[in-house]
């Protein structure tokens, strides 16, 4: 209960400040809408159903792109960690690709993959790739060499070592990458919707901007923030369930400190 209530306090404070400053400085509603106007926009959007197709389009692109991007990143990260040869083969190109601002690639991706959802998925996958890729490599390479020796003494196969020792050891690093990529995925989806799209929350923001409908823009921004928070909570939840031993270690540490 406390975990839900505590973040609500700053939220209420912001609403109060927000309302007060509008009336205090007489800010016109085409610059800053009142909270009431934003709630109204949200109502129109979700109760009357105007936003749903946009929300679903963005969610679909984000989730699919995220899964594809993170999946590819994990596999290639594991290959790089396993083979020096493969590392020399792909590493410089991955870093090169990463140094390019993904936003600058968006128009090109639209040209190649069209205005539909595929260009959004590609963009999201590209932007999600790097954090998971790097963290997978670092995580797998950080495995305690003694643990690996211990298994090698008994002629354990590479597959056995990978799944029994390396992967669980690397898991918290990999999850750190997955966590970063959740937020990046949303950015990727919205940016490519800005460039060209028929649907999506990014599309909605742009349309609202043209109509100077600031309240609607706020409504969409809140939606995006909420998706981001829920998405990263979900990843954290999965992490806690899968990597149960880390939570346990934390508990023990706090128990000792107390």
């Amino acid at each position, binding site marked *: 209960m406390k975990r839900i209530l505590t973040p609500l306090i700053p939220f209420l404070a912001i609403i109060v400040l927000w309302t007060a400053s509008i009336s205090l400085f007489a800010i016109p509603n085409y610059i800053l809408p009142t909270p009431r106007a934003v709630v109204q926009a949200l109502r129109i959007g979700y109760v009357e159903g105007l936003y749903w197709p946009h929300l679903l389009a963005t969610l679909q692109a984000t989730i699919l792109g995220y899964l594809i991007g993170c999946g590819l990143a994990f596999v290639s990260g594991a290959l790089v960690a396993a083979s020096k040869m493969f590392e020399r083969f792909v590493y410089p190109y991955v870093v090169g690709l990463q140094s390019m601002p993904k936003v600058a690639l968006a128009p090109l991706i639209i040209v190649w993959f069209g205005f539909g959802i595929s260009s959004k998925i590609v963009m999201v996958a590209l932007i999600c790739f790097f954090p998971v890729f790097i963290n997978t490599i670092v995580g797998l390479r950080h495995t305690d060499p*003694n643990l690996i020796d211990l298994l090698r003494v*008994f002629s354990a196969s590479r597959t056995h070592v990978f799944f029994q*020792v390396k992967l*669980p050891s690397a898991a918290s690093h990999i999850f750190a990458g997955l966590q970063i990529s959740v937020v990046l995925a949303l950015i990727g989806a919205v940016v490519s919707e800005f460039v060209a799209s028929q649907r999506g929350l990014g599309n909605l923001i742009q349309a609202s901007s043209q109509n100077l409908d600031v309240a609607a823009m706020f409504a969409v921004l809140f939606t995006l923030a909420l998706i981001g928070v829920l998405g990263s909570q979900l990843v954290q939840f999965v992490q806690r369930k899968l990597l149960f*031993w880390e939570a*346990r270690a934390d508990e023990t540490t706090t128990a000792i400190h107390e």
Partner: protein
Amino acid sequence: MATTTSPGRHLLVAENVSLVYKTSREPIAALEKFSVHVGLGEFVALIGPSGCGKSTFLKLAAGLLQPTGGRMTLNGTPIVGPRRDVGVVFQQPTLLPWKTVLDNVLVPSRILGLDREQSRHRALELLRLSGLEAFAPNYPAELSGGMQQRVALARCLVHDPRVLLMDEPFGALDAMTREHMAVELQRIWMAARKSVIFITHSIPEAVLLSDRVIVLSPRPGRVIDEVPVNLPRPRGLHIMADHVFGDLCTRLRTLFEGMIRLDR
């Protein structure tokens, strides 16, 4: 111990073993013309200054490294790769944090594909011997450092290996736990009679536990002396007050000091 050190019964033999590591700058010789033999059921301690190649020797014995010269045999056959009949303990417990204590002890038997029910039985028996039976379903993070190292000890015995290779197994423990663990190791060893190679930095620990103490030179490691320890077993901690014990420690310490002077 005369019977166990007779030439015909050597279990682990290293003859003129050399090992040169290739590094980015210049090759480093970790071991040079290194010869050691360990009898069946014999407890041998290896002491030497840090970086003298003690751990390298252990890796050779485990088959994790191949010597660049000389030869190593276990039970008469050359060690060409990792083998099943050794057990290893490191300075750190190196337990898998995502497995329970029992499953950690079972790691070797799972890899070797030993009978599950039998191994489980044996693992529980070993945990009982180490006084950890009640902790079988716990996770390593819930145990103290000394308890974790006892789990590692149980793990190295679960597949009933012929040789135990121990690389400063008590090095990370506090002095009190350390002495307690040494006595416990002796008890387990006397019951199971494995051949043990025990690397340590502690001269009293080496004398307390072993049948023979081998002293290594600084890198590249060579054997500079072997000191037999003919104290009766079981040896309790009180034996440390014995004058024979004291003399042995002094002798070993003198060897060490001579080495340091040579180094200068």
